[in-house]
């Protein structure tokens, strides 16, 4: 009998030691629950490895009539990703805002926002974020110095886009539907040798005598990183 008591005491002690985390979680008592979770803003962002996304991620929980639900529990998770907060209750407009820090490996990160559903189960929202490693960062620098002037349709006060002036129109580097079918070798070819080398428009100049092979490879790595639809290298099954 005594032994049983000791074991029970030990189990209680150990579990109380382990339950520090769950203690914090249980402080968030959901007051309501919804049936859908959706993105307000903050998906498809790009940052450098190990860094916070430039903008926070905002998600919203609605009920089945599409009305915002306040006080619903939202938890975030993702491999190698840190969230602040990792769990929160929705505010009066049904929203939760979290800052997100990506991990140290370059590439895509899938983050999941999850909320319990009214009547059991949970509903989830998946958002894709991208971390740029050294090579992609170098590619982004080259892109910002050269490519962006024609390949980005957006203008800023400091940089007027040339996109509208060109026929045929260039493709934005995010245009995965177009670029994903190109092999690395083909992309390197059109960048280095110009559009005419692959029977495309001469408006794409040859950069092979301007950029180093490393810079051109880096631009391709950057294009792959920002492609939307995400790029899948050949022969790799997900």
């Amino acid at each position: 009998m005594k032994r049983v008591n000791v074991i029970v005491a030990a189990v209680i002690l150990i579990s109380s030691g382990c339950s520090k985390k769950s203690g914090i979680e249980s402080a968030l008592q959901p007051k309501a629950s919804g049936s859908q979770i959706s993105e307000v803003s903050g998906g498809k962002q790009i940052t450098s490895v190990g860094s916070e996304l430039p903008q926070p991620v905002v998600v919203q929980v609605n009920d089945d009539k599409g009305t915002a639900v306040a006080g619903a529990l939202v938890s975030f998770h993702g491999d190698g990703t840190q969230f602040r907060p990792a769990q929160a209750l929705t505010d009066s407009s049904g929203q939760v805002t979290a800052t997100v820090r990506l991990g140290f490996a370059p590439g895509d990160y899938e983050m999941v926002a999850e909320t319990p559903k009214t009547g059991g189960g949970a509903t989830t929202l998946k958002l894709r974020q991208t971390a740029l490693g050294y090579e992609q960062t170098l590619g982004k620098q080259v892109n910002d110095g050269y490519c962006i002037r024609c390949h980005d349709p957006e203008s800023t006060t400091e940089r007027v886009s040339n996109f509208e002036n060109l026929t045929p129109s260039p493709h934005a580097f995010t245009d995965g539907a177009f670029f994903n079918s190109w092999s690395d070798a083909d992309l390197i070819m059109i960048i280095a040798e110009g559009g005419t080398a692959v029977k495309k428009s001469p408006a794409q100049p040859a950069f092979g005598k301007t950029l180093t092979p490393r810079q051109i490879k880096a631009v391709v790595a950057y294009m792959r990183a920002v492609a939307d639809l995400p790029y899948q290298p050949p022969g790799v099954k997900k």
Partner: protein
Amino acid sequence: MNWRDQLEKLRRLFFGDPARRFAWASLALTVSLAIAPTKEFFNEWRHYQRQFFNLVTTRPNGDALKRNFESGIHQIWIPEQHVVDRCPTCHLGMKEASLSDVRQRPFRVHPPIPHSLTEFGCVTCHRGQGAATTVEEAHASTKAWEQPLLPARYLEASCGQCHLGPLDGTPKLNLGRQLLAHYGCARCHRIDQPDGSPLLPSDDSPPLGHIAEKTSREWIFAWLKNPQAYAASATMPDFQFSDQQAADVASFLIAQSAPTPGTPVEPAAGAIKSAVDPAQGASLYGTSFCASCHAVQNAAGNIVGGDLGPELTRIGSKVKPEWLARWLKDPAHYDPRTQMPRYRFADQQIGLLTGYLMNKKDDDFLANVHLPPSDAANVERGQKLVAEYGCAACHQINGVGPPKNFAPDLSRIGSKPLAQIAFAPGMGETLPEYIGGKIHEPRAGGSGLKMAKYTLTDAQLEAITTALLAQTDRAWNMPRELIRPAAHSSDNQPGGEAGRLMTELRCQSCHRINGNGGDMAPDLTHEGSAVLAAWLPAFMNNPNTLRPALIRRMPKFNLSAADNKTISDYILSAYQAPGFDSLALDAHSLDAASAVRGMDLFYTKYACQSCHIADYKKDKGYIGPPLAAVGNRRPAVWLYKMLKDPQAVTPGTQMPNPGLTDAEAKDLTAFLVTLKARENGGGK
């Protein structure tokens, strides 16, 4: 039977005779000898090597991977860099390109970097304990370890250990170093780089020796209390002075102010009063391209304009109108080191601009500032504060010299041992968090601290932290031949009468000439070979013709014909590039047939109209400069050489090298020299 008998029985059973004793002793010895190999067998790294072996077994090229796999400790040893890294013992997939899709830690492929993994090892970039062979000891980031692992967001700091200048792949490090220079950190702290050169401040702080002519005690008080309330882009940090302290410092600064030596060039009396039409003032502000250097915060809160000069959003609440008029007439009289050019404004124009700028004010800024009259005690306390807080490290102040050894040396801050750091409560106990936290809340570490609080975004703070983390012991101990020093600027100045004029116009605030000057506008080192003799003086008379789409533009200085000629002649003769003579191109061969071929190359083969406008009626590209009048501007030799190798002629240009043959470059040149439209643009 009691327990003693039982024990005795046991003793006899095991040790009753010598044979049994020997057997047990042998067994004990065997077991003790086996401890070491067993421990070895159950080592953490063996566990990872077994995992890796299982992983490669499932791969299509598993047999080859297994053949290449060697069990045991893997080590990178680079004696001259003090690198002994056993990380590859567990990080086994780092060099296997065929494992690029493996996400399982620790077997991922290392992402591409510009160095091979054996060139510098692992800890040079990632820190951590290279020689350790357990996960905990290799990566631990607690105080007990000398070298915690560096978080990925600061990784660019590691590049900065050897590369002391900006690199394409390290935007965060570059920004951090730029900010260290911009905020003048090195005016108080010593920050030497491992090649021995000190990190230099990039901006001059305004001298305060004549401040009473410029502004009031009330403005100084309000500015000291909150510089960002006056100008959101202010560089000046917040010294967190009490009201009394700020009033004392303001009193002292007014008291130490002496009249500017020399006779100021006064605008004609009454010129200021002539400012009646704000629209005219705005137009003069625009056509003088003040916004190339000065920003103004717009209604939406965005700061629009350049950052070379101070923000002017509330300038009318700061300066005295008579000072402003004198300043616009001749800035160098008040501040000989200013970057502001001396425009040749007419007195009536000075009146217009002064009136326009004095209207840029914020009555709320000084509304609640009511200072009692200053007395000797104020001034004395103010002088003590100015000396104590090191104001003279940045500003020239009469009677207070710049402080020496004022703040800690940061040359090796990136290797500061954690055991030596007093962490403020609530701060994460790592070096990056200490550095970032110290800049963010400089006074949190205790009382008596003097460092001021800078207004920085999170991204700026992270960048500065990255730049400081590059200042490591490892960098100082690297073999010297591995260090890549930054390019240092020269102190080249134009000479003679033209040099005097060009200094007065502060050409080098924006233009670099022979390695000295700013980077806002084109490098003029070889400008004499780049433009035609007739074009340059005409351009300086009306700079509006070139690149009208740009925000930052060359202002019109209202030069006299004689001054214009002096400067033009000097640039055209002194700033010649070698090899731009008739040997490079026989200009006589540029005939009409050649021009026709060139036009075809321009429009068809090379699609130059994608970026350049040769004909305003049909071309639209506006990345490169419009070329419709390029024949009036560029010499044929320059065009030819630019077409052949743009980066050699204009380093850093966006123009790609099209890889032209000599004949093609000649034909294109022949076409371009025919482009002589009278006006560049016509409003485009």
